[in-house]
């Protein structure tokens, strides 16, 4: 089968602006997109630049956008892409500056990985934190592991399997919105260490630092990291687990934590999501005043939600759930 590779090209030393170049190839059974790019480079155009190494979906080097979705080129079959899109259109990873062709500058990604201190803290290590969440002498609640469970020591959800390929980071809606946001890979790593009982983080400083602005509460829950991880990891799920752990350990100074607690409290009181109350709980009165033009605009259109919500029918059922789970007073 003859097919076309349409590649993003840009060499800042000679090109004024980026362009696409097309290469026509013949496929072979089982041909991957990486095979195709290597064939282009070897036989048609030696100037095409891209990262690659293991060809086995383990080094994470060849991540790129293939027909608009970030994938590992070595793990993506040409035939499947052609069947769906009719072409192999390749672009560099998103959310990172482009160095040349399909190669991006990964520095910002690895800076964020370094920022979460991706190693077990020893007894003499200290994390700088200006916020003490727990009382003097109190230890953060940590899951207890037994020897038989050591094979799954680092929590779960396969976070240690991350190959740092940046697929999640490239697709992350949170990073698109806020380039300072730590992003899914760094946060999944934060989870991996915050769950490890060998880690000497006694005062919960990992979760405290992770709760700061541009941290775990800036996740937009777009689910792209889970969807497009080539190793089957779900950063968004472990980010949510860290939300829960932070809130249960009273690390609730962030707007994001307040937002979550506000929603839970609203459900406890009315069975519904009280839009006004949740907004006040999340951003406070001053935040609401900042948003006054939006609120007035919505009000004039008749979109203002009711100030006092009608309880759902059988509201007592919901109270039983909160009582059963011992959640009644915890968030106050």
């Amino acid at each position, binding site marked *: 089968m003859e097919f076309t590779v349409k590649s993003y090209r840009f060499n800042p030393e000679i090109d004024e602006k980026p362009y696409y170049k097309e290469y026509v190839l013949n496929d072979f059974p089982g041909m991957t997109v990486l095979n195709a790019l290597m064939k282009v480079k070897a036989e048609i155009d030696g100037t095409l630049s891209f990262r690659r190494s293991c060809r086995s979906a383990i080094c994470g080097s060849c991540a790129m956008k293939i027909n*608009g979705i970030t994938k590992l080129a070595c793990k993506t079959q040409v035939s499947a892409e052609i069947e*769906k899109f009719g072409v192999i259109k390749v672009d560099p990873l998103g959310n990172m500056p482009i160095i040349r062709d399909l190669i991006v500058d990964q520095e910002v990604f690895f800076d964020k990985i370094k920022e979460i201190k991706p190693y077990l803290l020893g007894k003499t290590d200290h994390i700088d934190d200006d916020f003490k969440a727990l009382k003097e002498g109190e230890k953060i609640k940590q899951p207890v592991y037994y020897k038989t469970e050591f094979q799954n020591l680092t929590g779960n959800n396969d976070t240690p399997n991350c190959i740092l390929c940046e697929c999640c980071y490239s697709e992350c809606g949170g990073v698109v*919105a806020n380039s300072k946001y730590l992003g899914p890979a760094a946060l999944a790593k934060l989870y991996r260490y915050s769950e490890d009982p060998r880690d000497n983080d006694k005062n919960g400083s990992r979760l405290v630092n992770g709760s700061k602005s541009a941290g775990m509460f800036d996740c*937009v*829950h777009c689910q792209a990291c889970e969807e497009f991880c080539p190793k089957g990891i779900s950063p968004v799920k472990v980010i949510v687990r860290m939300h829960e752990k932070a809130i249960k350990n009273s690390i609730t100074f962030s707007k994001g934590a307040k937002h979550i607690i506000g929603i839970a409290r609203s*459900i406890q009181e009315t069975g519904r*999501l009280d839009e006004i109350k949740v907004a006040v709980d999340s951003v406070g009165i001053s935040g609401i005043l900042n948003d006054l033009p939006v609120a007035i605009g919505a009000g004039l259109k008749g979109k203002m939600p009711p100030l006092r919500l009608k309880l759902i029918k059988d509201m007592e*059922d919901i109270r*039983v759930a909160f009582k059963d*789970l011992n959640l009644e007073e915890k968030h106050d």
Partner: protein
Amino acid sequence: MINYAYYPGCVAQESGKELDNSTRFIAKKLGINLIDMPEASCCGGGVVDGFDHNLKLYINGRTLALAEKLGYDILTVCNTCTLTLSEVNEELINNPESLEKTNAYLSKIGLKYSGTVKVKHLLYIIRDEIGLDKLKQAVTYTLDGVKVAPFYGCHILRPSSVVKFDDVENPSGFEELIKALGAEPVSYVRRTKCCGFQTILVNEVTSTSLAGNAIYEAQQNKADVMVTPCPLCHLSLDTYQGVAAMNINKKLSLPVLHLPQLIGVALGGSYAEMGFSRHNISFRAVMSKIKQNKLK
């Protein structure tokens, strides 16, 4: 008539009532019987999991059990409700331990869940169960000449291991529906991206930039109107459109409709019936164009 346990979600009952009204309007026209569940609670807005995972299981397990008791599948009109209910359904069906503890709670309130309910979004109920042919037949005002930018949002597509309605890499259900109404779907990259709503109260500037850029791209592609199957996306895209324009420093003025409003217009709904006056950006100009396209 096809019966569904109707789960409008909180926003459609509060600030987004026009979504609930237009859903009821088109349901009647398309032979969908919506059975109300006044006992159903909030799904947790996509974030209650971060408060307590079991709470998410309990309150949504309860909603699933209520629908099972009625004997109907659940019809949703909100992406986030769809994902949350689907996630809980998957967990209860596949994890006996979760089902057992949820049923222990449900037994205290006189309910039980055995995992027979399916959670379906209106968009895909129309495509898969009502059928686009039937929809076409019901059209009284063709949307011929109207360019519609579909904004899928996240939770109706991702994660595809849980919400399995469409091809996550290249979805087409929304476009097919738009074509069935006679309109022309606008193709643009951000149709499947995030609207930013989940962090709108955490970081408004960055959050609204996502919605703003999607609107800008649709505008650049000559869209007359943007349509979304999710009321949370609608808040980001319509209510916050002015803020988004300021934050991305672009001129934005694109009417944004809820999915059943677009269908409702094609099925003869009036400006008032569809509740368009409740929107921030006026749909009047496009509406008058459509009103000239009467078929029967």
